[in-house]
């Protein structure tokens, strides 16, 4: 009771010193909260980076020379999907087609490209705007498995095909050797009948750059059903669900069996390498991470400085009250009680100052409640540690030496 009474009296009587203590604590806490606010802001920016700068990627061949027209194992694609790390997956399948009875091994020229995909974004030679449909059909046919297709306008003219016609073609899959090299041979998959629901105008006149027939990838997969011909994807692109997990993604892909591209490797159509467009993300993330790490690296020093300020300010404030402590000791107040009174007095003032500092900081930075409480707690611990050391040093004076000094 006496201790609390003495503390209350001390605080109210030493108004200037009490105010100074509160002000010092308030300023330190304000500084710490602004510092933490900077760290939190950088962390939030880093988290937002994943949304603002998406990391995209595609499967390519080992020398990185192409990311379409490949032989990609569906098993690897499934494993990639199963990691849960990718989204917006775009895949394509590529086969060769011929009008019934027109293909023979000696006349390859009559084979034309037929692709199945789930998105037009896989093609660079036209955009969805270049496609016209018959009634009741639109781009959404790519998401289904209906036996429908769109056909290149040039092919329609050449073969006299009209929108709404039923197109019948023989489907052939290219043959590959063990190293993924195409050999000049094709394997017949079967006869395919599809309704022509639209046509598209390719920006390029090259026969190879745009397929002649496009269906959904699901429909194309169904062409293989009941045959012994193995199907492959010809292209696959994706976006990382969380750009920040780029390293985790790379590790997972390595485990699955994807390799980094190697320009010195020979050409192959096997799609088992990855191209990841992460330069912009990594550059921005590196800058943010570096500044975050730099801010964080100051933390130990900052808290040591807080303890030092606690020590110095308490030492100076208490030193000027040494005479008062000597009187207390002379009247029989024990060292422990003296320490308790002054320590608790300092703690109350520091707590008051830190609460005011936290309140003021609310107008400047928007910190999480948990962070604010943590900063206050850490500040109080370090500040009071400094105060305790100062008091222990000051409590070792000779009472008689202090009180016998004449004014």
């Amino acid at each position, binding site marked *: *009771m*006496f201790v609390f*009474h003495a503390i209350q*009296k001390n605080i109210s*009587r*030493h108004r200037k010193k009490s105010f100074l203590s509160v002000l010092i604590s308030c300023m330190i806490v304000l500084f710490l909260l602004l510092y933490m606010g900077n760290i939190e802001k950088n962390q939030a920016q880093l988290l937002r980076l994943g949304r603002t700068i998406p990391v995209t990627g595609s499967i390519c061949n080992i020398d990185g020379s192409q990311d379409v027209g490949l032989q990609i194992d569906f098993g690897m694609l499934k494993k990639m999907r199963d990691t849960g790390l990718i989204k917006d997956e775009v895949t394509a399948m590529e086969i060769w087609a011929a009008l019934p009875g027109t293909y023979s091994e000696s006349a390859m020229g009559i084979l034309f490209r037929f692709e199945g995909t789930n998105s037009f974004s896989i093609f660079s030679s036209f955009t969805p705007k270049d496609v016209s449909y018959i009634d009741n059909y639109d781009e959404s046919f790519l998401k289904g498995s209906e036996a429908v297709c769109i056909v290149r306008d040039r092919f329609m003219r050449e073969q006299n095909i009209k929108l709404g016609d039923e197109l019948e073609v023989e489907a052939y899959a290219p043959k590959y050797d063990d190293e993924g090299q195409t050999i000049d041979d094709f394997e017949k998959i079967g006869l395919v009948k599809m309704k022509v629901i639209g046509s598209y105008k390719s920006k390029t006149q090259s026969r190879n750059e745009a397929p002649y027939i496009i269906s959904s990838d699901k429909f194309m997969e169904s062409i293989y059903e009941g045959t012994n011909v193995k199907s492959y994807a010809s292209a696959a692109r994706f976006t990382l669900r969380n750009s920040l997990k780029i390293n985790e993604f790379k590790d997972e892909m390595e485990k699955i069996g994807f390799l980094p591209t190697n320009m010195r490797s020979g050409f192959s159509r096997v799609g088992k390498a990855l191209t990841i467009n992460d330069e912009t993300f990594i550059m921005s993330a590196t800058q943010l991470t570096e500044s975050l790490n730099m801010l964080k690296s100051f933390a130990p020093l900052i808290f040591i400085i807080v303890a030092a300020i606690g020590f110095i300010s308490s030492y100076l404030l208490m030193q000027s009250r040494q*005479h*008062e402590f*000597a*009187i207390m*000791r*002379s*009247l*029989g*107040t*024990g*060292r422990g009680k003296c320490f308790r009174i002054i320590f608790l007095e300092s703690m109350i003032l520091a707590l008051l100052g830190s609460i005011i500092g936290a309140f003021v900081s609310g107008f400047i930075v928007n910190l999480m409640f948990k962070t604010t409480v943590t900063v206050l707690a850490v500040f109080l611990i370090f500040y009071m540690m400094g105060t305790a050391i100062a008091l222990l040093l000051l409590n070792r004076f*000779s*009472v*008689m030496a202090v*009180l*016998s*000094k*004449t*004014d």
Partner: protein
Amino acid sequence: MVKLSILKAKEVSYVYKSKYQTVEAVSDVSCTFDTGKVYAIVGHSGSGKTTFLSLLAGLDLPTKGEIYLEDKPMSTLDRDKYRRNTASVVYQSFNLFPLLTALENVAYPMELKGVPTKEAKEKAKELISKVGLEERIYNQLPLMMSGGEQQRVAIARALAVGGKILLADEPTGNLDTANGNIVVELLGKLAHDEGYAVIIITHDMSIADRADVVYTMKDGKLATKGGSFNGTTS
């Protein structure tokens, strides 16, 4: 008044040790202090009298020898409790709490012992009146009082301890003759009328002349003994 030996120093020595030198401030001092008497310990600056007073006040322990409080060795006692209940010190520079009023200063030793504030203040008023101060002084801060008033408040605070040992270190050193007389008379009364053992450290021989017993200290040793209290100063 029955005079009992309350404090006894037996072969007491105190050595200050610093990095560069060792000084024996008090050397083999033996003496006794009875209640109801005024003792003066006189000596020049550096003779060891203030160090001896701090040993009697329990602020330090002798490096050799022992001080006994009613035959109990000081080294075995709780010395903070000894100052809270038995011995109090009055200093040359008064040493009142600068931001407490006269009433609060006097009430402090009682509050320290757990006496409720209101009760302590009532008792403080009685003690202030006992040292001859008026009611107007109650709420004055030390800086607002004269030296004589401050010293009397300091004596009232010493009385608030409630013990029978009153130690005074040059109590008139900062006072004019008139106020010095008042303080010395007051200390004499406390010894003779109320049975305090009053031990005054001084280099003022006029005060020593008025003590019942005079000890002279020189180079840490207690040299001579004598004197009689007559209640006035020259």
